[in-house]
Structures are given as structure tokens and as C-alpha cells.
């Protein structure tokens, strides 16, 4: 196949060709590695490229498939990992100077599962330092640049994952999401990013930001691809007590394009306050599309929304400080300024505030659960603004970017961001769909129906 044809493939399309022996994993991996070499000087999405290991894995995949040992849709597929997933024998920096030379001796559970599924790991992706920020402007490894406009941020903290997928450096990536770190960069880079239900995917071997809020999920070009990756990484894990023993459906089998009868809720408050006009128009347009496809739409109110950012901070900041306390005492100068400030701020939260935040979590799970008896999905913008310029006020940008995503880290509900338009200046806009706990299938089904109707996923950045 020609390079541009390979570049245009989604994970699912490549998998079908590989399964039919019409495409070689080695050819696909070589194309991704060439693409990495070509665009990395512009994007800085990778911290470590594992070219030799990837070619060896692709060669093994090719041999296994030729011998009739096809493992499934990830077999032979080039995948990138945010650089806070432990990878045996490959350094895992967490985007930090502190862990710059850290080489784990075992894989994170999700990495092991990807490898068992036959995925080809092409490298470790740049991120906001220790995943503690939403811009991916990294003081140690340089900023991740947005493929749609390299003067702008990719969003974060999984910025390298989003930029690499959007630019065709890999066919899928893994990210983590504590306040929006999968959905924000997915929105800003025009890809599909899914934060599953809390407990759906193991966090074992993932450098934590906040144990109570961290989620692992797929970042891909299409909804079908996200469904395939989620299926490969989800499920109980004896090494992570929060990873629940809940049945993992074949998510991709539910993508039938049908949303007839689905009940969508559009928030009356909060999610359309202080939103960029083009973002609001695109999201309201997406709601109209879903309605035309057969969904019903009603306005809803989520109680206590104003409290959720405070509760998130009261949990995240002290937990982050607890993890970093020893390093922060011994090596404070090795942290970037913004991350150091946030960690130090964690010391100012009284213990009672942390406990009240966890009680608030119980309250909103109960009360939002009642709202979700009346609707199947909530529809919101993923971010209130498109990608900001690199160097714009970091704190202001971060506070804006996390507003619509972090409520669902507190509730633990599944939420996806998918492309729903471009601004006049050509920047992606993200639509967020939020579902009931453990009902990723409905989130993905509606997202897939919208994607099929609009084809935004086929519009690619010209890097």
C-alpha cells in the first residue's frame, strides 16, 4: 500500500486487512516509524521511540499471523503509551526530571494486556509533568504541539497521546484522566478519547496523580477503534483492588448506528456558561443531529455542579502531595514551577475538607444517579474553548479546560470526547457524551452514530 493509504487507515480498517493478510504488521509499523521521524521535530509528541522493539514485535506478529495464530484486532497494530505506564525495560519518565532514568522491571497491567493482544508498542508519549496539568507544556521535554496548529497546545495531560494519534504516528494510544486528561487533549486535537467508568480498567503500574480519581482509557481516531482498545484493556485485576469484576461486553458489537429511543439530556446550567460561541454552536448542532437520528432531547439539571471542582481539588491535591511528598522535600527544584505550586498547595487543604469532598462524591453519585434514571446520556461540550496558544496564561487556561470534564472524574461515570466540528481558524471542537456507570456501550453507540453521520473523523490535520 502507498504511504498515504496506510496513513488514512483506522485501527479497525488496518485490523481487517491484517486479519485477511492483505497488510503486513511490519509494513504498517515501518510506516508509523517513518511518520514519527518526519513529524516529531514539529510535534514533540514522543519522549521515547522504541523503534527496534516495535520492529521486532511487528516481525513476531507477522510470523504468528502467517502461522494461523491471529489474536484479534490489535494484533500487529502500532500503539503509543503515555509515558506514565510502566514498561518493562523501557524508561518511564512520567514527563518528569525526577523519574528521568526510571526503568521499570515489569509492565503495567494494561501494557501487558495490549502486548498479549499482539499490539506493537512504538514508544512512550509526552505529557504534562506527572500528569498534573491540562496543557502538556512540559518544562523538561518541551511542549507537545497541536498537529492542527503547532503554535498551540495539544491539551493535557495526555497531550502526546492525542497529538500522535491525530498526526498518524500510531493508530491508537493509551492515556489517563484525573480531571479530563484523556478528553481535553482529544477535544483539542480532534480525536476520540474515552474515560471509562472508574474501576473498568486497571491502574496497576500507572504512575498515580490521584488514586481516587485516576482513570485509564483509549485515545483513537474513531469510536470503533476506542471500543476495540477498551475491550482489550478492561476487566478485573488482582493487582488493582479498584478494578472491578464486572462483565466486559464486546463494545464494538453494539455499534449499530441506531440511537432511536435514546434519551439525551442537555444541561440547563453550567455547561454552556462562558463557552466559546463556535464551540456552543457546534455542540448544539451535534445535539440536533442526534435528535434527527432518532434520539429524544430534554433539558436537565445536575445538582451541586458548583461544588464539583472544589471537591475534585480537595481530593486530587492532597493525594498528589501524598505521593510526591518525599521527592518534594528532597528535590523541590526538579519539579516544573506549575506542578510544584500545585503540589505545595495540597498542603493547605485540611483533612476535614478531604473527607467532606469524599462525602460530596457520595452525594452526587446518588443525586446524579436519579437524573440518569430519566436520561441515557448527557451531552455537553468537552472543553469550553479550542486549543490555546502555547505560553498563554497557564493557570487560566487550565481552569477553563477542566471545567466540563472533571465533574465526571468525581462521579466516576464513563464519558467520551469526539470531534464535532472545526472553528473558523481550523481548530477541532469536542463533543462530550456522558453515560451511566458501566454503560460505556451506550456512550460508544451514540458516539458512533454521530460520527457516522458527520464524518469529522476523516478530516485530518496537515502536519
Amino acid at each position, binding site marked *: 500500500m502507498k504511504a498515504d493509504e496506510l496513513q488514512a487507515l483506522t485501527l479497525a480498517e488496518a485490523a481487517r486487512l491484517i486479519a485477511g493478510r492483505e497488510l503486513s504488521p511490519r509494513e504498517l509499523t515501518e510506516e508509523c516509524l517513518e511518520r514519527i521521524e518526519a513529524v516529531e521535530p514539529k510535534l514533540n509528541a514522543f519522549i521515547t521511540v522504541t523503534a527496534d522493539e516495535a520492529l521486532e514485535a511487528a516481525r513476531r506478529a507477522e510470523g504468528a499471523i502467517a502461522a494461523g495464530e491471529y489474536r484479534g484486532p490489535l494484533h500487529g497494530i502500532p500503539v503509543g503509551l503515555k509515558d506514565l505506564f510502566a514498561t518493562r525495560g523501557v524508561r518511564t519518565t512520567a514527563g518528569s526530571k525526577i523519574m528521568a532514568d526510571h526503568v521499570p522491571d515489569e509492565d503495567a497491567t494494561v501494557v501487558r494486556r495490549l502486548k498479549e493482544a499482539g499490539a506493537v508498542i512504538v514508544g512512550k508519549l509526552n505529557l504534562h509533568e506527572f500528569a498534573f496539568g491540562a496543557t502538556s507544556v512540559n518544562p523538561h521535554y518541551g511542549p507537545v504541539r497541536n498537529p492542527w496548529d503547532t503554535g498551540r497546545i495539544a491539551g493535557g495531560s495526555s497531550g502526546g497521546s492525542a497529538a500522535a494519534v491525530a498526526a498518524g504516528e500510531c493508530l491508537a494510544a493509551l492515556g489517563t484522566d484525573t480531571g479530563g486528561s484523556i478528553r481535553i487533549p482529544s477535544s483539542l486535537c480532534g480525536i476520540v478519547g474515552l474515560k471509562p467508568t472508574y*474501576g473498568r480498567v486497571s491502574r496497576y503500574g500507572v504512575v498515580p496523580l490521584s*488514586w*481516587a480519581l485516576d482513570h485509564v482509557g483509549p485515545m483513537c481516531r474513531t469510536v470503533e477503534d476506542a471500543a476495540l482498545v477498551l475491550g482489550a484493556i478492561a476487566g*478485573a485485576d488482582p493487582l488493582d*483492588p*479498584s478494578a*472491578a*469484576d*464486572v462483565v466486559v461486553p464486546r463494545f464494538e458489537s453494539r455499534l449499530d448506528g441506531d440511537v432511536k429511543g435514546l434519551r439525551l439530556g442537555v444541561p440547563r446550567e453550567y455547561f454552556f456558561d462562558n463557552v466559546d460561541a463556535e464551540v456552543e454552536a457546534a455542540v448544539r448542532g451535534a445535539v440536533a443531529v442526534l435528535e434527527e437520528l432518532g434520539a429524544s432531547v430534554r433539558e436537565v439539571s445536575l445538582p*451541586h455542579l*458548583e*461544588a464539583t*471542582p*472544589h*471537591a475534585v*481539588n*480537595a481530593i486530587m491535591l492532597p493525594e498528589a*502531595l501524598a505521593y510526591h*511528598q518525599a521527592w*518534594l*522535600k528532597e528535590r*523541590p527544584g526538579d519539579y516544573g514551577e506549575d506542578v510544584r*505550586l500545585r503540589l*505545595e*498547595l*495540597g*498542603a*493547605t*487543604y*485540611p483533612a476535614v*475538607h478531604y*473527607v*467532606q*469532598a*469524599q*462525602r*460530596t*462524591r*457520595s*452525594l452526587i*453519585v*446518588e443525586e446524579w444517579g436519579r437524573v440518569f434514571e430519566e436520561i441515557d446520556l448527557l451531552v455537553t461540550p468537552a472543553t469550553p474553548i479550542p486549543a490555546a496558544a502555547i505560553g498563554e496564561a497557564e493557570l487560566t487556561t487550565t481552569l477553563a479546560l477542566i471545567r466540563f470534564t472533571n465533574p465526571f472524574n468525581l462521579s466516576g461515570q464513563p464519558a467520551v470526547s469526539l470531534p464535532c466540528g472545526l472553528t473558523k481558524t481550523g481548530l477541532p471542537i469536542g463533543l462530550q457524551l456522558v453515560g451511566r*456507570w*458501566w454503560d460505556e456501550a451506550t456512550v460508544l453507540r451514540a458516539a458512533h452514530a454521530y460520527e457516522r453521520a458527520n464524518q469529522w473523523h476523516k478530516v485530518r490535520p496537515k502536519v
Partner: protein
Amino acid sequence: MTETEDPEATVRRLTQLAGLAVPEERLSSLAALLPLVQQGTETLARLDLGEREPAPLFRVPGQERSG
């Protein structure tokens, strides 16, 4: 934080309690963020949490896991 305490003194005291030695020149940046913490405390304190317990995190070994 007491009503009369200097915000920088509050930050110094709280970070010291957490075992951190924050240099004097950094205290003002942190002190500027204290109103956000205070606002959060007040917002959460206004909620009627009733008898609700904190969301559980701790699981004893062998406890049956469920969704």
C-alpha cells in the same frame, strides 16, 4: 486560617506541617491561591451531606469485589 493571620504565615505553617520547606520567595504565589481553597471549604460546608459516608476507597483483602 484565622481571620487575622497573614496568608503567607498560614502557608508557611501549613506547608511546614506537611514537612515541606517552602522558600520565602514562593510564599506569596501560594498565598494568592488560598482564597480558592477557602472558597472550596465554604462551598462544601454549605452542602447538606446528611448521614452520607465518604465514598469508599479501602477494601479489605479477600473482600468480594463488585461493580
